[in-house]
Protein backbone atom coordinates (compact mmCIF):
# COMPACT_ATOMS: atom_id res chain seq x y z
CA UNK A 1 0.00 0.00 0.00
CA UNK A 2 1.19 3.50 -0.62
CA UNK A 3 1.15 6.19 1.99
CA UNK A 4 -1.01 9.21 1.31
CA UNK A 5 0.89 12.36 2.06
CA UNK A 6 -1.12 15.02 3.78
CA UNK A 7 0.36 18.43 4.37
CA UNK A 8 -2.77 20.16 5.62
CA UNK A 9 -1.93 19.90 9.36
CA UNK A 10 1.35 21.63 8.57
CA UNK A 11 -0.34 24.40 6.66
CA UNK A 12 -2.80 24.83 9.50
CA UNK A 13 0.09 25.22 11.91
CA UNK A 14 2.11 27.65 9.83
CA UNK A 15 2.19 30.13 12.70
CA UNK A 16 3.92 27.64 14.98
CA UNK A 17 6.47 26.97 12.24
CA UNK A 18 6.99 30.68 11.68
CA UNK A 19 7.64 31.11 15.39
CA UNK A 20 10.17 28.30 15.17
CA UNK A 21 11.82 29.93 12.17
CA UNK A 22 12.20 33.15 14.12
CA UNK A 23 13.79 31.20 16.98
CA UNK A 24 16.18 29.49 14.55
CA UNK A 25 17.25 32.76 12.95
CA UNK A 26 17.63 34.49 16.32
CA UNK A 27 19.86 31.72 17.70
CA UNK A 28 21.81 31.58 14.45
CA UNK A 29 22.45 35.33 14.40
CA UNK A 30 23.70 35.44 17.98
CA UNK A 31 25.91 32.37 17.58
CA UNK A 32 27.29 33.61 14.27
CA UNK A 33 28.40 36.92 15.73
CA UNK A 34 29.69 35.49 19.00
CA UNK A 35 31.26 32.40 17.46
CA UNK A 36 33.13 34.12 14.64
CA UNK A 37 33.97 37.14 16.81
CA UNK A 38 35.29 35.20 19.76
CA UNK A 39 37.11 32.88 17.35
CA UNK A 40 39.16 35.82 16.09
CA UNK A 41 40.13 36.71 19.65
CA UNK A 42 41.13 33.10 20.34
CA UNK A 43 43.16 33.02 17.12
CA UNK A 44 45.01 36.21 18.12
CA UNK A 45 45.61 34.85 21.61
CA UNK A 46 47.00 31.72 20.01
CA UNK A 47 49.79 33.75 18.42
CA UNK A 48 50.29 36.03 21.40
CA UNK A 49 53.64 36.90 22.87
CA UNK A 50 52.50 35.61 26.26
CA UNK A 51 52.86 31.91 26.76
CA UNK A 52 49.88 31.71 29.11
CA UNK A 53 47.57 33.23 26.49
CA UNK A 54 48.84 30.75 23.92
CA UNK A 55 48.31 27.79 26.22
CA UNK A 56 44.82 28.81 27.24
CA UNK A 57 43.90 29.38 23.62
CA UNK A 58 45.28 26.01 22.47
CA UNK A 59 43.55 24.24 25.35
CA UNK A 60 40.27 25.93 24.48
CA UNK A 61 40.53 25.05 20.79
CA UNK A 62 41.50 21.44 21.41
CA UNK A 63 38.82 20.87 24.02
CA UNK A 64 35.96 22.39 22.08
CA UNK A 65 36.97 20.78 18.80
CA UNK A 66 37.39 17.36 20.35
CA UNK A 67 34.06 17.14 22.17
CA UNK A 68 30.63 16.92 20.54
CA UNK A 69 28.68 20.14 20.44
CA UNK A 70 25.56 18.42 21.80
CA UNK A 71 27.50 17.37 24.89
CA UNK A 72 28.61 20.98 25.28
CA UNK A 73 25.05 22.29 25.04
CA UNK A 74 23.81 19.75 27.58
CA UNK A 75 26.72 20.49 29.87
CA UNK A 76 25.86 24.18 29.88
CA UNK A 77 22.19 23.39 30.37
CA UNK A 78 22.34 20.73 33.08
CA UNK A 79 25.80 21.02 34.65
CA UNK A 80 26.66 24.71 34.67
CA UNK A 81 23.73 25.72 36.93
CA UNK A 82 25.30 23.52 39.63
CA UNK A 83 28.39 25.71 39.56
CA UNK A 84 26.94 29.18 39.17
CA UNK A 85 23.84 30.42 40.90
CA UNK A 86 22.15 31.74 37.77
CA UNK A 87 19.36 30.33 35.75
CA UNK A 88 20.47 28.94 32.42
CA UNK A 89 17.72 29.10 29.85
CA UNK A 90 17.68 26.79 26.84
CA UNK A 91 18.57 29.82 24.73
CA UNK A 92 21.62 30.63 26.87
CA UNK A 93 22.80 27.03 26.96
CA UNK A 94 22.50 26.75 23.19
CA UNK A 95 24.34 30.04 22.71
CA UNK A 96 27.17 28.90 24.97
CA UNK A 97 27.54 25.50 23.34
CA UNK A 98 27.24 26.55 19.71
CA UNK A 99 29.20 29.81 20.01
CA UNK A 100 32.14 28.34 21.89
CA UNK A 101 32.27 25.34 19.58
CA UNK A 102 32.19 27.63 16.53
CA UNK A 103 34.79 29.90 18.09
CA UNK A 104 37.19 26.96 18.38
CA UNK A 105 36.67 26.02 14.73
CA UNK A 106 36.81 29.54 13.38
CA UNK A 107 39.94 30.28 15.43
CA UNK A 108 41.72 27.63 13.38
CA UNK A 109 40.36 29.18 10.19
CA UNK A 110 41.61 32.65 11.13
CA UNK A 111 44.96 31.21 12.15
CA UNK A 112 45.41 29.50 8.80
CA UNK A 113 44.46 32.74 7.06
CA UNK A 114 46.93 34.83 9.05
CA UNK A 115 49.68 32.28 8.50
CA UNK A 116 49.06 32.32 4.77
CA UNK A 117 50.06 35.98 4.51
CA UNK A 118 53.61 36.31 3.21
CA UNK A 119 56.21 37.50 5.75
CA UNK A 120 57.07 40.29 3.30
CA UNK A 121 53.73 41.94 4.09
CA UNK A 122 54.61 42.15 7.78
CA UNK A 123 58.09 43.37 6.94
CA UNK A 124 56.93 46.08 4.56
CA UNK A 125 54.47 47.41 7.13
CA UNK A 126 57.00 47.28 9.95
CA UNK A 127 59.56 48.96 7.68
CA UNK A 128 57.40 52.10 7.42
CA UNK A 129 57.09 52.19 11.19
CA UNK A 130 53.72 50.52 11.71
CA UNK A 131 53.30 48.75 15.04
CA UNK A 132 52.48 45.07 15.27
CA UNK A 133 48.85 45.82 16.02
CA UNK A 134 48.55 48.34 13.20
CA UNK A 135 50.10 45.85 10.80
CA UNK A 136 47.67 43.17 11.88
CA UNK A 137 44.65 45.42 11.60
CA UNK A 138 45.48 47.33 8.42
CA UNK A 139 47.60 44.93 6.38
CA UNK A 140 47.37 41.30 7.50
CA UNK A 141 43.78 40.82 8.64
CA UNK A 142 42.11 42.43 5.62
CA UNK A 143 44.00 40.07 3.32
CA UNK A 144 43.64 37.04 5.60
CA UNK A 145 39.88 37.51 6.06
CA UNK A 146 39.42 37.73 2.32
CA UNK A 147 41.23 34.45 1.84
CA UNK A 148 39.24 32.60 4.51
CA UNK A 149 35.88 34.04 3.57
CA UNK A 150 34.69 30.77 1.98
CA UNK A 151 35.76 28.80 5.05
CA UNK A 152 33.97 31.27 7.31
CA UNK A 153 30.84 31.05 5.18
CA UNK A 154 30.97 27.28 5.53
CA UNK A 155 31.26 27.71 9.28
CA UNK A 156 28.20 29.94 9.17
CA UNK A 157 26.25 27.24 7.35
CA UNK A 158 27.36 24.71 9.97
CA UNK A 159 26.18 27.05 12.71
CA UNK A 160 22.81 27.31 11.03
CA UNK A 161 22.51 23.53 10.96
CA UNK A 162 23.69 23.28 14.56
CA UNK A 163 20.82 25.45 15.80
CA UNK A 164 18.57 22.37 15.49
CA UNK A 165 20.45 20.85 18.43
CA UNK A 166 18.87 23.48 20.67
CA UNK A 167 15.62 21.56 20.29
CA UNK A 168 17.14 18.94 22.61
CA UNK A 169 16.97 21.42 25.49
CA UNK A 170 13.50 22.55 24.33
CA UNK A 171 14.53 25.87 22.82
CA UNK A 172 11.79 26.97 20.46
CA UNK A 173 13.19 26.71 16.95
CA UNK A 174 12.07 25.04 13.75
CA UNK A 175 12.81 21.44 14.67
CA UNK A 176 11.29 21.84 18.12
CA UNK A 177 8.11 23.18 16.60
CA UNK A 178 8.13 20.37 14.07
CA UNK A 179 8.38 17.78 16.83
CA UNK A 180 5.42 19.40 18.52
CA UNK A 181 3.30 19.41 15.38
CA UNK A 182 4.28 15.82 14.63
CA UNK A 183 3.30 14.63 18.09
CA UNK A 184 -0.06 16.33 17.92
CA UNK A 185 -0.98 15.29 14.39
CA UNK A 186 0.87 11.99 14.06
CA UNK A 187 2.42 13.15 10.80
CA UNK A 188 6.22 12.93 11.36
CA UNK A 189 6.91 12.00 7.74
CA UNK A 190 5.42 15.22 6.36
CA UNK A 191 6.82 17.32 9.19
CA UNK A 192 10.43 16.19 8.94
CA UNK A 193 10.31 16.21 5.16
CA UNK A 194 9.13 19.80 5.18
CA UNK A 195 11.64 20.89 7.83
CA UNK A 196 14.46 19.24 5.94
CA UNK A 197 13.28 20.89 2.73
CA UNK A 198 13.09 24.29 4.42
CA UNK A 199 16.68 24.01 5.61
CA UNK A 200 17.80 22.78 2.22
CA UNK A 201 16.04 25.53 0.30
CA UNK A 202 17.49 28.16 2.59
CA UNK A 203 21.04 26.83 2.85
CA UNK A 204 21.69 25.39 -0.58
CA UNK A 205 21.90 28.76 -2.35
CA UNK A 206 24.43 29.78 0.29
CA UNK A 207 26.42 26.61 -0.36
CA UNK A 208 26.45 27.37 -4.09
CA UNK A 209 27.43 30.96 -3.41
CA UNK A 210 30.34 29.74 -1.30
CA UNK A 211 31.55 27.50 -4.12
CA UNK A 212 31.38 30.46 -6.49
CA UNK A 213 33.23 32.65 -4.02
CA UNK A 214 35.92 30.00 -3.62
CA UNK A 215 36.44 29.81 -7.36
CA UNK A 216 36.57 33.57 -7.70
CA UNK A 217 39.13 33.97 -4.94
CA UNK A 218 41.21 31.13 -6.36
CA UNK A 219 41.30 32.92 -9.69
CA UNK A 220 42.23 36.32 -8.30
CA UNK A 221 45.00 35.07 -6.01
Amino acid at each position, binding site marked *: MTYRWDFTPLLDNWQALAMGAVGTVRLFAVCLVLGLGFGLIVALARRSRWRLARWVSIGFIEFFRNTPV*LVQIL*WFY*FALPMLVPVEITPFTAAIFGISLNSAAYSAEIYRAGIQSIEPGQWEAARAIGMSGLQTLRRIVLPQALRRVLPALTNRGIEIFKMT*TLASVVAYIELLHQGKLIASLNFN*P*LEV*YTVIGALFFLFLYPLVRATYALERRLARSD
Partner: protein
Amino acid sequence: MYRWDFTPIWAHGDLLLAGLGNTLVLTAVALAGGLPVGLALALARLSGNRLMAAPAGLVIEVFRTTPPLVQLFWFYFGLPIILNVEMTPYLAAALTFTIQSGAFFAEIFRAGIVSVDKGQSESARAIGMSKAQAMRRIILPQAVKRMFPAMMERSIELMKTTTLVATVSYADLLYQANELAQKTFRPLEVFTAAALLYFVTITLVSALGALVERRMAQSGEMTR
Protein backbone atom coordinates in the same frame (compact mmCIF):
# COMPACT_ATOMS: atom_id res chain seq x y z
CA MET B 1 30.86 26.58 46.79
CA TYR B 2 29.75 23.45 45.01
CA ARG B 3 31.25 20.25 46.40
CA TRP B 4 32.26 17.95 43.60
CA ASP B 5 31.54 14.29 44.19
CA PHE B 6 32.59 11.79 41.58
CA THR B 7 31.82 8.65 43.58
CA PRO B 8 28.47 7.97 41.86
CA ILE B 9 30.31 7.99 38.58
CA TRP B 10 32.87 5.46 39.72
CA ALA B 11 29.97 3.36 40.97
CA HIS B 12 28.26 3.47 37.58
CA GLY B 13 31.33 3.74 35.41
CA ASP B 14 30.33 0.58 33.57
CA LEU B 15 27.22 2.37 32.28
CA LEU B 16 29.27 5.16 30.72
CA LEU B 17 31.77 2.71 29.28
CA ALA B 18 28.97 0.64 27.78
CA GLY B 19 27.69 3.88 26.24
CA LEU B 20 31.12 4.65 24.86
CA GLY B 21 31.18 1.13 23.42
CA ASN B 22 27.89 1.76 21.64
CA THR B 23 29.19 5.10 20.34
CA LEU B 24 32.22 3.34 18.88
CA VAL B 25 30.09 0.54 17.38
CA LEU B 26 27.80 3.03 15.70
CA THR B 27 30.74 5.06 14.41
CA ALA B 28 32.40 1.93 13.04
CA VAL B 29 29.21 0.75 11.34
CA ALA B 30 28.57 4.15 9.77
CA LEU B 31 32.19 4.30 8.65
CA ALA B 32 32.10 0.80 7.18
CA GLY B 33 28.89 1.68 5.35
CA GLY B 34 29.71 5.29 4.55
CA LEU B 35 33.01 4.68 2.76
CA PRO B 36 31.61 2.36 0.05
CA VAL B 37 28.47 4.49 -0.24
CA GLY B 38 30.68 7.55 -0.61
CA LEU B 39 32.84 5.92 -3.26
CA ALA B 40 29.76 4.78 -5.18
CA LEU B 41 28.23 8.25 -5.01
CA ALA B 42 31.48 9.85 -6.14
CA LEU B 43 31.89 7.48 -9.07
CA ALA B 44 28.26 8.00 -10.04
CA ARG B 45 28.68 11.75 -9.91
CA LEU B 46 31.84 11.58 -12.00
CA SER B 47 30.47 8.99 -14.42
CA GLY B 48 29.39 11.51 -17.02
CA ASN B 49 26.08 9.64 -17.23
CA ARG B 50 23.29 12.08 -16.40
CA LEU B 51 20.98 9.35 -15.11
CA MET B 52 23.56 8.40 -12.50
CA ALA B 53 25.18 11.73 -11.80
CA ALA B 54 22.01 13.69 -11.08
CA PRO B 55 20.54 11.44 -8.35
CA ALA B 56 23.98 10.98 -6.79
CA GLY B 57 24.45 14.74 -6.76
CA LEU B 58 21.06 15.23 -5.17
CA VAL B 59 21.77 12.73 -2.36
CA ILE B 60 25.17 14.30 -1.72
CA GLU B 61 23.89 17.86 -1.61
CA VAL B 62 20.78 17.10 0.47
CA PHE B 63 22.67 15.16 3.11
CA ARG B 64 25.46 17.69 3.30
CA THR B 65 23.15 20.67 3.53
CA THR B 66 20.37 19.60 5.92
CA PRO B 67 20.86 19.35 9.69
CA PRO B 68 21.83 15.82 10.81
CA LEU B 69 19.24 15.85 13.59
CA VAL B 70 16.46 16.46 11.06
CA GLN B 71 17.81 13.58 8.98
CA LEU B 72 17.82 11.30 12.00
CA PHE B 73 14.25 12.21 12.89
CA TRP B 74 13.19 11.65 9.31
CA PHE B 75 14.70 8.17 9.28
CA TYR B 76 13.47 7.27 12.73
CA PHE B 77 9.95 8.71 12.69
CA GLY B 78 9.23 9.25 9.01
CA LEU B 79 10.72 6.39 7.03
CA PRO B 80 8.88 3.59 8.88
CA ILE B 81 5.63 5.17 7.72
CA ILE B 82 6.61 4.87 4.06
CA LEU B 83 8.07 1.41 4.42
CA ASN B 84 5.50 0.29 6.95
CA VAL B 85 8.15 -1.41 9.07
CA GLU B 86 9.29 -1.30 12.68
CA MET B 87 12.25 1.06 13.10
CA THR B 88 14.74 0.66 15.91
CA PRO B 89 16.94 3.53 17.12
CA TYR B 90 20.00 1.55 16.09
CA LEU B 91 18.75 0.92 12.56
CA ALA B 92 17.66 4.53 12.08
CA ALA B 93 20.99 5.80 13.36
CA ALA B 94 23.02 3.38 11.26
CA LEU B 95 21.07 4.32 8.13
CA THR B 96 21.26 8.07 8.74
CA PHE B 97 24.94 8.16 9.49
CA THR B 98 25.89 5.74 6.74
CA ILE B 99 24.22 7.84 4.08
CA GLN B 100 25.19 11.16 5.64
CA SER B 101 28.86 10.30 6.05
CA GLY B 102 28.69 8.72 2.60
CA ALA B 103 27.64 12.08 1.19
CA PHE B 104 30.60 13.80 2.83
CA PHE B 105 33.02 11.02 1.87
CA ALA B 106 31.76 11.23 -1.70
CA GLU B 107 32.99 14.81 -2.01
CA ILE B 108 36.34 13.83 -0.51
CA PHE B 109 36.65 10.94 -2.97
CA ARG B 110 35.68 13.19 -5.83
CA ALA B 111 38.23 15.86 -4.93
CA GLY B 112 40.89 13.17 -4.54
CA ILE B 113 40.09 11.52 -7.87
CA VAL B 114 39.96 14.83 -9.70
CA SER B 115 43.29 15.84 -8.19
CA VAL B 116 45.12 12.94 -9.85
CA ASP B 117 46.88 14.13 -12.97
CA LYS B 118 44.96 13.51 -16.18
CA GLY B 119 48.05 11.97 -17.72
CA GLN B 120 47.75 9.10 -15.25
CA SER B 121 44.41 7.88 -16.57
CA GLU B 122 45.49 8.58 -20.14
CA SER B 123 48.61 6.49 -19.83
CA ALA B 124 46.63 3.72 -18.12
CA ARG B 125 44.16 3.71 -21.00
CA ALA B 126 47.07 3.86 -23.44
CA ILE B 127 48.39 0.52 -22.23
CA GLY B 128 44.96 -0.96 -22.77
CA MET B 129 43.41 -0.81 -19.29
CA SER B 130 39.66 -0.42 -19.10
CA LYS B 131 38.20 2.66 -17.44
CA ALA B 132 37.40 0.63 -14.33
CA GLN B 133 40.85 -0.91 -14.24
CA ALA B 134 42.47 2.50 -14.55
CA MET B 135 40.35 3.79 -11.69
CA ARG B 136 41.04 0.83 -9.45
CA ARG B 137 44.71 0.23 -10.22
CA ILE B 138 46.05 3.68 -11.02
CA ILE B 139 43.82 6.56 -9.90
CA LEU B 140 42.36 5.45 -6.58
CA PRO B 141 45.63 4.27 -4.99
CA GLN B 142 47.11 7.70 -5.63
CA ALA B 143 43.98 9.54 -4.58
CA VAL B 144 43.50 7.65 -1.31
CA LYS B 145 46.77 8.83 0.18
CA ARG B 146 45.87 12.43 -0.51
CA MET B 147 42.37 12.01 0.85
CA PHE B 148 43.44 10.46 4.11
CA PRO B 149 43.63 13.65 6.23
CA ALA B 150 40.18 14.79 5.10
CA MET B 151 38.78 11.28 5.67
CA MET B 152 40.21 11.24 9.15
CA GLU B 153 38.74 14.64 9.94
CA ARG B 154 35.35 13.54 8.63
CA SER B 155 35.43 10.33 10.66
CA ILE B 156 36.01 12.33 13.81
CA GLU B 157 33.13 14.63 12.89
CA LEU B 158 31.06 11.50 12.42
CA MET B 159 31.91 10.22 15.87
CA LYS B 160 30.89 13.54 17.37
CA THR B 161 27.67 13.62 15.37
CA THR B 162 26.65 10.18 16.62
CA THR B 163 25.76 11.87 19.94
CA LEU B 164 22.52 12.90 18.26
CA VAL B 165 21.25 9.32 18.55
CA ALA B 166 20.76 9.92 22.25
CA THR B 167 17.66 11.88 21.26
CA VAL B 168 16.07 8.73 19.80
CA SER B 169 17.09 6.65 22.83
CA TYR B 170 20.00 4.76 21.36
CA ALA B 171 22.15 3.99 24.39
CA ASP B 172 25.32 5.81 23.36
CA LEU B 173 27.65 7.59 25.75
CA LEU B 174 25.59 10.77 25.84
CA TYR B 175 22.34 8.89 26.40
CA GLN B 176 23.87 6.93 29.27
CA ALA B 177 25.27 10.12 30.76
CA ASN B 178 21.84 11.72 30.65
CA GLU B 179 20.27 8.68 32.34
CA LEU B 180 22.95 8.62 34.98
CA ALA B 181 22.62 12.32 35.64
CA GLN B 182 18.96 11.90 36.33
CA LYS B 183 19.50 8.85 38.50
CA THR B 184 22.26 10.36 40.64
CA PHE B 185 21.22 14.03 40.64
CA ARG B 186 24.85 14.77 39.79
CA PRO B 187 24.59 16.34 36.31
CA LEU B 188 27.75 18.40 36.76
CA GLU B 189 29.98 15.44 37.48
CA VAL B 190 28.29 13.14 35.00
CA PHE B 191 28.30 15.53 32.02
CA THR B 192 31.82 16.64 32.83
CA ALA B 193 32.94 13.03 32.92
CA ALA B 194 31.14 12.32 29.65
CA ALA B 195 32.74 15.36 28.01
CA LEU B 196 36.16 14.22 29.20
CA LEU B 197 35.55 10.70 27.92
CA TYR B 198 34.67 12.07 24.50
CA PHE B 199 37.64 14.37 24.61
CA VAL B 200 40.08 11.60 25.47
CA THR B 201 38.63 9.20 22.90
CA ILE B 202 38.57 11.74 20.10
CA THR B 203 42.02 13.08 20.94
CA LEU B 204 43.38 9.53 20.88
CA VAL B 205 41.73 8.81 17.55
CA SER B 206 43.09 12.01 15.99
CA ALA B 207 46.56 11.30 17.36
CA LEU B 208 46.37 7.84 15.84
CA GLY B 209 45.24 9.33 12.55
CA ALA B 210 48.10 11.83 12.58
CA LEU B 211 50.52 8.98 13.20
CA VAL B 212 49.20 6.95 10.27
CA GLU B 213 49.33 10.08 8.13
CA ARG B 214 52.99 10.62 8.95
CA ARG B 215 53.77 6.97 8.22
CA MET B 216 52.03 7.25 4.89
CA ALA B 217 53.92 10.41 4.06
CA GLN B 218 57.23 8.72 4.81
CA SER B 219 56.49 5.55 2.89
CA GLY B 220 56.98 5.94 -0.81
CA GLU B 221 56.85 8.94 -3.07
CA MET B 222 54.04 11.01 -1.62
CA THR B 223 55.02 13.97 -3.72
CA ARG B 224 52.51 14.48 -6.50
